[in-house]
């Protein structure tokens, strides 16, 4: 982290784009993200996979360049870039040397403003997504996540990027263009940038480069998870059984979110965490075990996950849930302080990376509609007490669970 205080700039550009910058003097690279507040949640139910298709074909040609020419132009300035398609956002991220920043912004804007979505690229995109669905069958970790999302988040937030075979078959080039036109609008756009920059100049630069996008468009969708309590097993010939457990948590903006964050750190962050200690190190039940939360924009979900050979699956499941309950019973000050230190220290060390800073800033805008100083977040974490954890667990009991298993055996008596 820089020794000087970070300086933020946050404004709404005349076009409606939300812009935030973190000035990091002395850095040698610049990172930025352009985020569209729309993703899988905006897909028609019969055309799942459409957002991913838009993301994949956006870079395959512009009014000025073919896809390869556009990629070559980014490479000509050494701009490392990628795109993503998520539940509620689509985006572009880029890291480059400061000297090439303006050129990279021009290229990014060209891609966002004037994509041509070539017919061949749209056709191949669908073919590749069908093949990715086959590949997903060979990735038990991602497959079990897909199955969990379907049950725990429901038909809208639980969508998977690749869609389904039958919905992919219905997607046309016209659908891709319609999705782009109706979602890539200034009011749905957030831009964050960090590095040795001049925020005023860059605000103008982005505004000019992205001028011409349709100013119309409806507000970004804001769905809530459609949570289902229950147990589902999916049979698959695997060496291991994958266990996923999920229940509702709190949104990022909830005042108890820092408490939830510390609670999950106690459970699954670091090798001294309870799950790692109890499930792996004391009993040798698993190699991988984890606890984490995920946040749609206005909600939150808690996840526990592990994979073990079938004979150990039931004991693993019981231990996972027992450790959640035990947190309310015997948490110590030392343990709490350790979990808090872990969160704060890692945000300090990782802050040395410009890309990490811009990612944090993007998350701030998405959830809080403003940059949030690291000190503010850390102060909230450091203020969490044992009583806060106990109260959180009492207020959010893990009674209603969504449990999904994937593997060779259905038997799990404890579930």
């Amino acid at each position, binding site marked *: *982290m*820089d020794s000087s205080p970070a300086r933020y700039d946050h404004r709404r550009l005349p076009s409606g784009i939300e812009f935030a910058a973190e000035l990091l003097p002395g*850095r*040698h*690279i610049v990172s930025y993200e352009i985020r569209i507040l729309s993703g899988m949640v905006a897909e028609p139910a019969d055309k799942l996979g459409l957002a991913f298709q838009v993301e994949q074909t956006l870079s*395959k040609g512009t009014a000025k360049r073919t*896809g*390869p020419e556009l990629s*070559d132009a980014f*490479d*000509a300035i*050494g*701009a*490392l870039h990628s795109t993503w398609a998520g539940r509620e956002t689509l985006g572009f991220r880029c*890291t480059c*040397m400061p000297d090439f920043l303006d050129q990279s912004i021009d290229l990014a804007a060209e891609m966002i403003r004037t994509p041509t979505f070539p017919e061949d*690229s749209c*056709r*191949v995109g669908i073919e*590749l997504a069908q*093949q*990715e669905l*086959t*590949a997903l*069958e*060979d*990735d038990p970790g991602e497959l079990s996540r897909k199955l969990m999302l379907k049950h725990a988040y429901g038909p809208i937030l639980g969508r998977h990027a690749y869609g389904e075979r039958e919905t992919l078959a219905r997607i046309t080039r016209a659908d891709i263009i319609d999705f782009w036109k109706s979602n890539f609008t200034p009011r749905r756009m957030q831009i964050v940038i960090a590095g040795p920059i001049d925020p005023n100049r860059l605000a103008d630069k982005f505004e000019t480069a992205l001028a011409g996008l349709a100013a119309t468009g409806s507000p970004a969708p804001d769905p809530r998870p459609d949570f289902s309590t229950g147990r589902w097993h999916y049979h698959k*010939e*695997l*060496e*291991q059984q994958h266990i996923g457990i999920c229940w509702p948590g709190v949104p990022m903006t909830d005042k108890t979110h820092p408490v939830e964050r510390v609670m999950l750190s106690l459970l699954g962050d*670091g*090798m*001294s*965490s309870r799950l790692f*200690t109890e499930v*792996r*190190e004391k*009993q*040798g*039940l*698993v*190699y*991988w075990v984890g606890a984490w939360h995920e946040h749609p924009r206005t909600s939150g979900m808690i996840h526990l996950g592990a994979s*073990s*050979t079938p004979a*150990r699956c039931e004991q693993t499941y019981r231990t996972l849930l027992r450790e959640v309950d035990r947190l309310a019973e015997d948490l110590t000050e030392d343990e709490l302080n*350790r*979990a808090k*230190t*872990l*969160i*704060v*220290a*890692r945000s*300090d*060390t990782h802050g*040395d*990376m*410009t890309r990490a800073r811009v990612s944090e800033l993007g998350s701030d805008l998405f959830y809080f509609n403003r940059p949030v100083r690291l000190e503010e977040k850390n102060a909230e974490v450091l203020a969490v007490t044992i009583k806060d954890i106990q109260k959180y667990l009492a207020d959010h009991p893990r009674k209603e669970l969504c449990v999904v298993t994937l593997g060779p055996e259905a038997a799990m008596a404890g579930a």
Partner: protein
Amino acid sequence: MSSFFQQKLANGLTVVVETMPDVSSAAAGFLVRTGARDETSPLAGVSHFLEHMCFKGTPKRPWQQITIDFDNMGSTYNAFTSKEKTFYFGWVRKADFDKQVELLADMMRSVIPPGEFETEKKVILEEIAMSDDQIDRHLYDIAHEKVFAGHPLEWPVLGSTKTVSDLSRDQMHGYFSQRYNPANMILIAAGKVTPDEAVRVAERHCGSWPSAGPRPQRTAPKLNTDGVTVAQMDRFKQQAIAMIMPAPSATHEDDETAEALAAILGGQNSRFYWKIVQAGVAPVAAAYRIDYCDTGIMMLYGFCEPPNCERLAEAIRREIDLVVKDGVKDHELQRVKNRRRTALATEAEAPYHRLMQIAHDVDMVGRPRSVEERLAAVDAVSTDKIRDYVRRWPIDGPHYLVSVGPRKWPTN
């Protein structure tokens, strides 16, 4: 601007420091020059199992205290084992640098607690089971098993269910005593730390380690890069295929040329991407050069729908032929260099990433290399050098073909 320092302690432990004045954190790690290739067949997997056991107890700490002490610092820490090295590391706030080195150094004196041995064995067996569910691991492991047949580089890093199940604590202790020898280890530090400070800390925590003879030697493998192995596995839905040919070692003068060729063929914005992936033949087609201290291989591979095997193999061969016949273009090579330049600048701002790179450099080259030096090596690659490379390291000649998946392909 960062700077390097290197010094050897009296007991043979090498200390390498990169001072990075622009950052606020520091990373440290112990590189032990031991991995799967240093094992005997019955001990396959011992290096990796031992890495786990180093977290399980020291003369000063029971296992719980090791992880508690890491987490009390808020360290980003872990360890990994490869074919040639085992690396233990932690990334902390600058103020915790001394404590981080002390803890890592303590782990290097593991007592391999007998009471924890069988429990941790179960964890390793779970890791092997997890790995067995990954088609890419099968491809990688079978490729090594065949190409390096008869040499320890053929062992999988995890070992097998049998070798790990059969391994005793005494066997592991013998291996540990031989390999975790100061002459075979390097302490690396990167970040906001001075050479004086790093050496002082190293002397304090490692200076009393007894020296135990010279660094053990390795023997170079003979490669078998002419053959075919089909591993029919109905449990997988895709077919994974790889063509493997010889490539230079990490220390060879063609090192960066090989990397550039792999990037042009099968990296980002590469020929494979536009001609194979974007032609809808396969979702994954890539080139990957694997470098060891005295040998290397080039792996051209892809994952496809089983009926597409022929198309994928033909497409890879077509791109190989084009490179051999026409060479590569200046602008293709320049793109690789430009991307590398930004990637190196990005790496240079994180002590953690620098630590990983220094570990590679000191292990392979024998000394750390600055970002500028690595950039110069990349810049020295030319289209002529690539043309010359494919003559000396043929990619269109005999190769080993590995096919894994539900289809028995090729059939003859």
